[in-house]
């Protein structure tokens, strides 16, 4: 009885956590890349927007962002989608600030001559960034970027406090329903998180080796 219940709740929570993670990772990466591009752009107002974004979202506690996205904005008639998407919004906006900063440091490691050569053959600023600078910047920041994604994995657990049925939510449920199996509850949930994190670090290591060869 306990075992089948544990497995079913674990797999339910695992899928929800993966969905939170997957969507937030995708949106944060796209948004973070755009923000990083703004921060290195020659247009001052764009840079200012990038700087302000990072200052606001990196310095706000994640729980506060969740409160704003899940409770505050819907109160004002904004962001009235499902709780799941409100949670993804909070996670994505928060993580994008970190992706932006990691990527910006990566952009700074790409030699200025690379961008000059790209401009010299007639590429526009956007093409230079997209085709020459960013691909190299990403390669240079694989380890810190993996750390950002691992932090995001753990941050998805905050969603459990806002009615999202993720792994952590299932844990508190399991503790309530099966207080006698406390250690099993903890260890099995922990194993699920460890699995996700291991996949992220493994993928990062693999990717780093592959692009390492091509340089």
């Amino acid at each position, binding site marked *: 009885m306990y075992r089948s219940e544990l497995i079913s709740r674990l797999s339910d929570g695992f899928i929800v956590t993966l969905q939170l993670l997957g969507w937030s990772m995708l949106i944060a990466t796209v948004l973070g890349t755009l923000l990083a591009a703004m921060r290195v752009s020659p247009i001052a107002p764009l840079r200012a927007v990038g700087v302000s974004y990072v200052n606001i979202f990196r310095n706000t506690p994640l729980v506060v962002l969740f409160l704003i996205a899940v409770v505050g904005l819907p109160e004002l008639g904004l962001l009235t989608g499902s709780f799941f998407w409100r949670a993804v919004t909070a996670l994505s906006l928060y993580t994008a600030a970190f992706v932006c900063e990691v990527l910006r440091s990566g952009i700074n490691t790409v030699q200025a001559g690379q961008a000059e*050569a790209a401009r*010299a053959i*007639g590429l526009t600023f956007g093409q230079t960034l997209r085709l020459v600078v960013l691909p190299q910047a990403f390669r240079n920041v694989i380890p810190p970027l993996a750390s950002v994604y691992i932090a995001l994995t753990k941050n998805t657990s905050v969603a459990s406090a806002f009615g999202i049925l993720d792994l952590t939510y299932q844990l508190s449920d399991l503790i309530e329903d099966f207080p006698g199996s406390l250690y099993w509850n903890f260890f099995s949930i922990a194993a699920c998180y460890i699995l996700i994190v291991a996949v992220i670090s493994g993928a990062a290591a693999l990717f780093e080796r592959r692009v390492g060869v091509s340089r």
Partner: protein
Amino acid sequence: MAASNEPDVLSTGMQAAVGEPLVQMQNVNKSFGSLHVLQDINLSVQRGEVVVVIGPSGSGKSTLCRTINRLEPIDSGTITLDGQPLPAEGRALARLRADVGMVFQAFNLFAHKTVLDNVTLGPIRARGVKKAEAESLAMELLERVGVADQARKYPAALSGGQQQRVAIARALAMRPKVMLFDEPTSALDPEMINEVLDVMTSLAKDGMTMIVITHEMGFARRAAHRVVFMDAGRIVEQAVPEDFFTNAKSERAQDFLSKILTH
């Protein structure tokens, strides 16, 4: 804009030195902070002309070279290319830069792209040339500069001399009106300098308009139509190579030549 169908891929510059100059700089001034690196520069380069710019380091020759495709904006004066003034940063400038080939001291090949992709990137992305067409032109150019067998490798796997020849092919792939060389051999080991200079000499023979910043006096004697001597941000003297090397007029040039020609 499609690439033209000239039979010789290397000779895009035309020989006829008639009409207005291809590159014209008038009263160009440029400062980095309090350092006045270009002072009232007047220089015009005709089609098919090879101009070698020499001078001590810090004399402003690299900056001069970089202002011609506006990698370095100028503070005052005008620069025209084929009669057109350089536009401000944006698409028009990108189009104009596509017509100006540039070869850097540090090669600056795109590290994450193969040799072939380095050469095709510009034609495909800036000119809209089809991939197959861009690749066949690229292979032809890589053949010309002698590195066709390296086409699938990444730049880091090539020697400095090979990388610089790829960089020349990359610039030529845009079928430029003029080629700028910013100390193309200064970062090379001595035994690799010649393979790059040979390519440049053959380009010059084919009638390419070239502005070359270099310390290679042999190349200047052999390939240049005109030597421009710069010092402290000014053009001090210009002459045909033979006159300049045997009979420099300014004291500064004589001093410079005595230092570099006697070692």
